[in-house]
């Protein structure tokens, strides 16, 4: 069944391209304008006065953006239509303009239309919605190469990370092989950088940056298994359109491809008590060699690994705060 869905998705992608080129330029342009923060550069974090989603960090995330814009066009048209009807009714059928009310209370034709048309609109949404859902939830087995051909994704292309949500920080576990070929578990905690320490930490964002970031190799597929040790938490990464709950006693799974280098932020997304707002996620995608070095350092001492990654892949400078001074 998934093959059918994946093929459908491919065909739909072609259709979408055609639609984009031929029919929906205007709608896409409007929707596109809404998705970029007002006057902001590309960023993997929230942006002041933003109107839409954070820029997409992967192909799947791009598809989510596209789908959101597509549905936005539809629901905006519907809302404008209903507003127009209300305006028309107010102008044309107020007591002054129309002193004698009509008496009708039925019209079979219109009733059929306003039942069937919504069904068709919902269908038009659903044909893109289901492939998008399956794409996000089902781990891919094939990837499309630059020459347009498909290749199997090898097990070596996957990095598996176990993530534990705790009150009130995240713990990450990565399997690695040490020099003797034995499996070692690299384990570290990621805690929010305290507000007082933000000014002295270059590039750190208040409520977003963590002391130890989660580092990932560019180009690899990431499989993340999620659990929690006390209450329900939720691991979210808006730039990748990811969010999966970390539930005690349950192992959940998500996947994504680490495509673009950069620093990415997310925040816990399930109310978990006092410091729910203060257990963020910081992720850095770095070249494979930097990841390998970071991982081997982390096997011994996470502080050394963090110092190393802050040297070779530091956070970009913090944006100037647009809002008024405190």
């Amino acid at each position, binding site marked *: 069944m998934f093959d059918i869905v994946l093929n459908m998705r491919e065909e739909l992608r072609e259709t979408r391209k055609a639609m984009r080129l031929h029919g929906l330029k205007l709608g896409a342009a409007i929707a596109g304008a809404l998705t970029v923060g007002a006057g902001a550069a590309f960023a993997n974090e929230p942006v002041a006065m933003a109107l839409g989603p954070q820029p997409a960090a992967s192909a799947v995330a791009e598809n989510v953006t596209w789908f959101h814009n597509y549905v936005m066009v539809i629901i905006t048209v519907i809302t404008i239509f209903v507003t127009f009807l209300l305006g028309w009714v107010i102008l044309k059928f107020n007591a002054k303009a129309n002193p004698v009310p009509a008496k009708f209370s039925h019209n079979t034709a219109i009733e059929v239309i306003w039942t069937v048309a919504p069904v068709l609109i919902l269908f038009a949404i659903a044909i893109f919605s289901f492939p998008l*859902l399956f794409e996000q939830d089902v781990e891919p087995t094939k990837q499309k190469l630059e020459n347009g051909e498909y290749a199997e994704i090898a097990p070596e292309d996957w990095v598996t990370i176990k993530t534990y949500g705790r009150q009130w920080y995240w713990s990450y576990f990565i399997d690695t092989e040490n020099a003797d070929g034995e499996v070692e578990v690299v384990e570290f905690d990621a805690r929010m950088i305290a507000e007082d320490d933000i000014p002295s930490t270059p590039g750190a964002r208040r409520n977003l940056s963590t002391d130890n970031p989660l580092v990932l190799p560019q180009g690899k597929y990431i499989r993340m298994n999620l659990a929690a040790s006390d209450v329900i938490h939720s691991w979210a990464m808006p730039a990748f359109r990811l969010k999966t709950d970390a*539930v*005690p006693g349950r192992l959940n799974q998500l996947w994504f491809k680490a495509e673009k280098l950069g620093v990415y932020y997310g925040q816990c997304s399930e109310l978990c008590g006092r410091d729910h707002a203060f257990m963020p996620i910081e992720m850095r995608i770095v070249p494979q060699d930097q990841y390998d070095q970071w991982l081997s350092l982390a096997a011994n001492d996470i502080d050394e690994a963090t110092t190393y990654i802050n040297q070779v892949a530091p956070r970009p400078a913090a944006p100037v*705060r647009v809002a008024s001074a405190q």
Partner: protein
Amino acid sequence: MTTEPTIKREAVADHHDGDHTGAPSVWSPARWLFSTNHKDIGIMYLVFAMFAGVIGFGLSGMIRIELMEPGVQYFTGLEGSWGDQHNYNVVTTMHGLTMIFFMVMPALIGGFGNFFVPIMIGAPDMAMPRMNNISFWLMPFSFGLALLSMFVPGVNETAKGFGGGWVLYPPLSTSGHPGSSMDLLILSLHIAGISSILGAINFIVTILNMRAPGMTIHKMPLFAWALLITAFLLVLALPVLAAALTMLLTDRNFGSQFFDPAGGGDPIMFQHLFWFFGHPEVYIMILPGFGIISHIVSTFSKKPVFGYLAMAYAMAAIGFIGFIVWAHHMYTVGMGVELKAYFVAATMVIAVPTGVKIFSWIATMWGGSITFTVPMLWAIGFIFLFTVGGVTGVMLANAGVDHMLHDTYYVVAHFHYVLSLGAVFTLFAGWYYWFEKMFGIKYNAPLAALHFWLMFIGTNMIFFPQHFLGLNGMPRRYVDYPDAFEFWNRISTYGYMITAVAMIVFFSGLILSMIVRKKAEANPWGEYATTLEWTLSSPPPFHQFNELPVVKNAGGH
């Protein structure tokens, strides 16, 4: 009733069918404590809801004031502050519970439902008047327990109150809050549930058995239809909440492990049970409002409601489908993709009957001769704003994009549009439509209109920017947020301030009308107010329809 039925629809403010003798003094405590009068009980529900609404509105004020600027200003945990971040979570939790269980439901179902359903179907009272009174008086006890829960240990001695959201998810609500606060809250909700279940039974029995001669189900006013369907939803959904609450109680106090994985339990099972109730609950909150809007739009367009049968059965369809979509609140828990896909499809289906209703209200106005009275302003505002809230619901129904939007301010914006700008607008619409009928005095029209416009501007200013916040990634239930989210949070708080002025105008108008006491008419709205309450005096006699009205003509709903 053995007296001969007489034709009553032409009689206006006729006291033959009423009975003022035996009406106890307004100042008699027994009249209110031991009431068996649906109108008195309806008034008590409305007063209770107003009181709870003020508290709920104050709680949301604390939220918006804290969120105006990044950083924690008021929930710092320091001496003299409002508490710490745990207390902020308590405030958000209690805001939701108060508004849902102690404001919207009591006002629409307990208030307007009790007052008007018996009259509209030509009955002298509800089927079980004494049980009706029990339903009401359980509510102040329930609310008292809930309020008390804020001031007893929640997490520990210093962290008082339950701060786990109105959804009460374990393990946060079990091992996460060992103090007695959560137990008080569970008991509070058990009692509120009993109140609503008993009330729902009363409505079903009344509507199915006590319609006046000639009033078949298909001639019943749409508000009565709405209450009938709402009552069925209550009777079927609330016991599931009660079960879930009881399981929380036993997990917390009697060693069960329903939701504890260490004992083979599953926190996700709670979510299934809760949302099996929770989703019908949101339709319970809006369906009575749908009924009110149908009455108001018809009256002030001087036209019968377009497509009466479709309107009635659309509400039934919404109610029925509302039972099979619950897991769209759970798209991120780790559900299998095929199951998610089912819930996406089922959720989108609800848009069809809802669209039928929106278009039918517009078609009722089409060709009409509309007067823009205050109730009509609220009704038109509702149609527009509920559409906005409804379409963001269509966006959220799609799991593929909900992964991005779940637990963000986009969801907060969506449900406040359909609740604060949907259900609450129907509440105020009904309030002004039926004000002079219930109280025997006219409302102050200029202040009422000002109330509408300030509320319209204010609530839109609060909640529209929250769509932007959610899209850009701001999570909900957060006492503090990354600096980038400041701008829209600030705008949202300004909107709250305007809404607060609107509420002051509302209460001022109410007090002014009570001082001026301009005498009400039996039917201020003209010949197109066709339901039975407009044939009675304002206020109606203490007992109406000692002789049942006979409904002859079918039209004019």
